[in-house]
């Protein structure tokens, strides 16, 4: 079994949201007070939502980094061995499905 844990999913998602937060939030700062916010009910939605995304992105990225550095990265557990699992394997063997 190749480990999916070799890429912690929180890293790309955290990275994406950090980038989006910086871009959209930065654009919000640059356009603060602009007439474009008339359509968003006079709320500088770029700035506010950019900050929210930045926060979420950084938190996810940090969580992903911490887990990746730890001994047991999140997402990797011992496979549970159970009697019924073995029974299935026997059946699989019989029906030639085994890989």
């Amino acid at each position, binding site marked *: *079994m*190749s*480990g*999916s*844990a*070799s*890429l912690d*999913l929180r890293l*790309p*998602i955290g*990275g*994406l*949201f950090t*980038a*989006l937060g910086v*871009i*959209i939030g930065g*654009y*919000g700062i640059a*356009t603060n007070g602009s007439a*474009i*916010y008339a*359509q*968003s*009910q006079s*709320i500088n*939605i*770029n700035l506010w*939502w*950019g900050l*929210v*995304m930045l926060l*979420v992105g950084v938190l996810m990225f940090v969580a992903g980094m911490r887990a990746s550095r730890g001994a047991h990265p*999140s*997402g*990797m*557990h011992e*496979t*549970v061995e*159970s*009697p*019924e*699992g073995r*029974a*299935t*394997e026997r*059946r*699989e063997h019989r*029906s030639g*499905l085994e*890989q």
Partner: protein
Amino acid sequence: MDIARMARLAPVDYVVMAVYFAAVLAVGWLLRRLMRTSTDFFLSGRSLPPWVTGLAFISANLGAQEVLGMGASGAKYGIATSHFYWVGAIPAMVFVGLFMMPFYYGSRARSAPEYLKLRFDEKTRTLNAVSFAVMTVFSSGISMYALGKLLNLLLGWSFDASILVSAVIVLAYIVLGGLTSAIYNEVLQFFLIVFGFLPLVWLGLVAVGGWHGLSMQLSALSVARGFPADAYTHAWRTMGDAARNPIGVEWFGLVMGLGFVLSFGYWCTDFLVVQRAMAAESMTAARRTPLIAALPKMFFPFLVILPGMIALVLSGAGGAHGLIPAKLTAAGLPLLDAAGHPVLDYDLATPMLLIRLFPTGMLGLGLTALLASFMSGMAGNVTAFNTVWTYDIYQAHIRKGASDAHYLWMGRAATVVGIVLAIAAAYVASAFNNIMDMLQLVFAFVNAPLFATFSLGMFWKRTTGHGAFWGLLSGTIGAAVHHGLTLPAGAVPGIKGGYLGLVHTYPSELAQTFWTAITAWTTCMVVTIVISLMTRPRPDEELRGLVYALTPRQTDAEHSFWRRPTTLGVIVLIMTLALNFVFF
């Protein structure tokens, strides 16, 4: 109205889109080294944690049909559209997690059709595999068509280029990283869709004066359309009588048709979603997958239905219909129905709201969220297609016993072919005025009988292969006959039904769809039982692990109380019940 100028994108909007494209491709690139065997490619090596498979479980379904279709239905039918979630999806997801996953995951079948092969026989598997493969291509074609049409209408982009670019990106990340890549990107897309639509709902509610303001305006609109004042803002109050609600269905048709047959048929048997759970790392993780998925899913009505309802009351191009524009003919003129009224393009409800409320910057994010939904839907279909094609059609009938490397290669080839076929389907799909209704119709033909087959197979050990096969076939035929003999009000015989003669007219397409599903399920159930009783059952020994009565119960005793699937399932059901009461 000059269509090409509905919205203009600024450089910052393109940057946002480009960052998203880079992210999904990067995920595929980073995962490419992990695809060593066909199990890695088709089943993610059965190694993913449940929160990942759970979010992918709903995201794979969060395609065009959900985001645009639910917005469209919100504008057409109001908050009652949430029945798709609170009566339909959630109870079905709890059922598949608690009761059916032990057989899907426990049997070690690699696909839903393969379970049918283990439980019944080769012909039942093949019938299911072929109809499923056709359906995935069709679904992803519809998704692409909607994307191309939308981008063309909103931004003036070329229909062909929009389809091609998004198809090539999806193709690239699946060929590189297989199911893991599709699933990882589905989770990423899930977050993007949520973060793209939450601010839309927020700004929308601010614009219409909150839920209270929205209710007031929808009440007036409801009365003007000849319904009771609360028909658009309450989910159950007007369900006593088909004539008093815009869906045109009474509670029995709703609960049986949508809730029981269609939703259980879709969420419990559709390999597109079940495949996500099968990629989980353990039996408990597989069972928790749909339950974890149900937690965010129950709040999706606020994310995808509310925008449609808000679009209906915000003043705009549609006059009395808010922001919703008329459908246009090929010549660019409003399309008129038989009575001379313009036909409304409900699928544009959500995109129109997006353009109306999002300034440059957020507009890029909103459109990227839409693109993300299309891509997750397309990727879900394509990964389910390549698996079913490779395992259930190619390996079963065309080339048995080849090397694993060969099937891995075939999986990649099937991905390319599947996407090419879906592009072809995109050019075919354009007759219905609401994508959701069309998909529900297809699901009714193919999926509604399936739930009867799977549930009889899992819970009644007497069911035989012959019974399952003929039951499935007659269920689908039953659906086609019912559809062919009925029509929704105002439609002409043709793709909408009535092609075999007309014996009944339903008040809406949805009502017809629900009853088509009920017919299909009942036919399949009865035929399967009758033929099973006439044919010889398989000995118990062969059915261990495949049938409820012959499989040890899942006790989950090794997990703490709150981590057990049953506990989670009960919590999900209580919360869903509460939502039904809040919006009663």
